[in-house]
């Protein structure tokens, strides 16, 4: 069993501890141990980039959780913001050369743009699209994601070489540190991404206690009643969509930094699966909960890691071609039996019994 899988499983267990809202002492112990685990991981792990990827997709899921979980608007197009964030960071921060006219500004400016540009895009897109509800909103966001990808494919330069996106040939990221510093770079990256991911969870914790957060919950529960109670539903929804875009955009920028190049294609930064992964992660952990994306990101990665490791076991080579099928089956079982995610098991008042699963099936069937 790989060491990273152990870290992920420990991560799930400790995050579940940390999420015990009604037992503050247990929660503090959980947060403390989780912090310790995550600080030690890069020094012990043989492949810390795998753990870095957990945090990147987790950060993107935190974004989806704000619009899909807190506000009840299931976006199926988060990859649009993921890609926009990646392009914003690369265009801003990558060192310009003969092949590409990027701006070469400091990397932190790039990350500010990676949050800001998707948020602005969400403002413009959200204005019309957030008037739709349910399936129609989902389909519209799906369309937005496809449209954004096609725009990046076809637009090379805007305004006489002022802003160049590279069209279908994409953009390369000039290495910020020399090859010799790659080891240090990977450490630094691990901790900065971890800090952003943890920061986003702390932000959501604060959000769920703020007036803005309660406004979002009210919209999710009943939009008409929320409006009558004095909530400006239009702006609250747009605000949530912008926040979601900003978090997902930041995550996309990190993916670009790790990959070293971006192309406006489905197998690069506009991978449609990203839109689904962020939803699956929130479903795994618990939609609309503060810790859900954290638990979900660990669980999702642990399943992937486990299936990966299984392929190496003699007699299990066939798993390679069946990974997605098995993963899909797990997601179906989860939605049927645990629609509120893993957190539902521990949040259940009567403690854990197998009846939870049956009750969910009964309650959710029409």
């Amino acid at each position, binding site marked *: 069993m790989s060491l990273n899988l152990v870290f992920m499983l420990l991560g799930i267990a400790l995050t579940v501890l940390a999420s015990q809202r009604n037992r503050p002492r247990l929660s503090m112990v959980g947060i403390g141990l989780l912090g310790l685990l995550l600080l030690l991981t890069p020094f012990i792990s043989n492949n810390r980039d795998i753990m870095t990827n957990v945090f990147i997709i987790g950060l993107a899921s935190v974004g989806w959780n704000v619009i899909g979980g807190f506000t009840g608007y299931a976006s199926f197009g988060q990859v649009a913001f993921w890609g926009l964030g990646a392009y914003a960071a690369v265009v801003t921060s990558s060192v310009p050369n003969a092949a590409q006219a990027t701006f070469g500004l400091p990397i932190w400016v790039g990350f500010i743009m990676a949050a800001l540009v998707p948020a602005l895009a969400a403002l413009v897109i959200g204005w019309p699209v957030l008037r739709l509800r349910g399936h129609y909103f989902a389909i519209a966001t799906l369309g937005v994601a496809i449209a954004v990808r096609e725009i990046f494919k076809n637009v090379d330069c805007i305004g006489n070489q002022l802003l160049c996106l590279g069209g279908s040939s994409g953009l390369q990221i000039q290495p910020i540190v020399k090859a010799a510093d790659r080891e240090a770079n990977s450490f630094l990256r691990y901790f900065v991404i971890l800090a952003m991911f943890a920061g986003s969870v702390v932000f959501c914790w604060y959000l769920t*206690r*703020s*007036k803005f957060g*309660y*406004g979002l*919950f*009210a919209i*999710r*529960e*009943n939009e*008409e*009643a*929320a*409006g*009558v*109670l*004095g*909530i*400006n*539903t239009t702006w609250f929804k747009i605000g949530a969509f912008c926040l979601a875009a900003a978090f997902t955009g930041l995550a996309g920028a990190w993916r670009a930094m790790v990959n070293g190049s971006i192309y406006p294609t489905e197998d690069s930064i506009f991978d449609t699966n990203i839109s689904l992964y962020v939803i699956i992660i929130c479903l795994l952990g618990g939609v609309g909960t503060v810790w859900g994306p954290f638990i979900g990101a660990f669980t999702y990665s642990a399943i992937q890691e486990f299936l990966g490791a299984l392929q190496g076991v003699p007699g299990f080579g066939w798993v390679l071609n069946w990974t997605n099928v098995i993963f899909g089956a797990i997601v179906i079982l989860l939605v049927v039996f645990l629609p509120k995610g893993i957190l539902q098991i521990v949040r259940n008042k009567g403690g854990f019994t197998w009846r939870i699963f049956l009750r969910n099936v009964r309650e959710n069937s029409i």
Partner: protein
Amino acid sequence: MNETNLLEIRGATKLYGGVAAVTDISFNVQRGEILGLIGPNGAGKTTLVNMISGTAVPTRGTIKFKDEVLNGKKPHIIGKMGIARTFQVVKPFQNLTVLENVAVGAMFGKGGVKRSSAQAFKRGEEVLQFVHLENYRHDLSESLSIAGRKRLELAKGLAMDPEILLLDEVMAGLRGTEVDEAMDLIRAIHNYGITLLVIEHVMKVIVGVCQRVVVLDYGKKIAEGTPAEVTSEPAVIQAYLGKRYVANQAQGLTQEQSPLE
């Protein structure tokens, strides 16, 4: 500004397609009164409340609150101005606790601008005490009984610190003793200085708490006056109360049921 009239409805008309739900209705709600609004099902009572609270826009006519025209204003603006309402089909925030439900009203209503989230929860506790739901405050609102949910609707509206509260059939589905409790609650809210517009089928409530009554039928106003005046009006008896109600009243029988049942 007209000191006595809190709400002025002038020629309000609402067409859905070609069908008129409400036609040319005019009346005032005076500051500090309890005004009853009665009429058979489909008479346009809820449509009228929808137009006042901004969830429906009048096709013609104007609705003024403290001399300010409400037509075309969004529900959340109207809510912040000091108009709160309940829904006939209750709309609790099911996955939030009872206290959270009420706190949301306290956060975003007329008094909400100055309140922090914590202060809104404190206000929510007060309101729950007032409507006697304090023992359920940490329960999910979906676990409440019908009577409880009706009370929660009232509490959410009250927490907004409104000047006028529009009650859309908060008694429907309640049992005898529950109706009495709810009537006491309405009087207590009124003593608090809040103007009330009460839609109700239970005539005992209308006669018991309202100072004036407006009667609608087929989207038109057919009578307006004190409960005694209105219940002796032939048009009202014909359209809504029925002859049995009048006969029972004459014999001194208490009419517990609504005229329609």
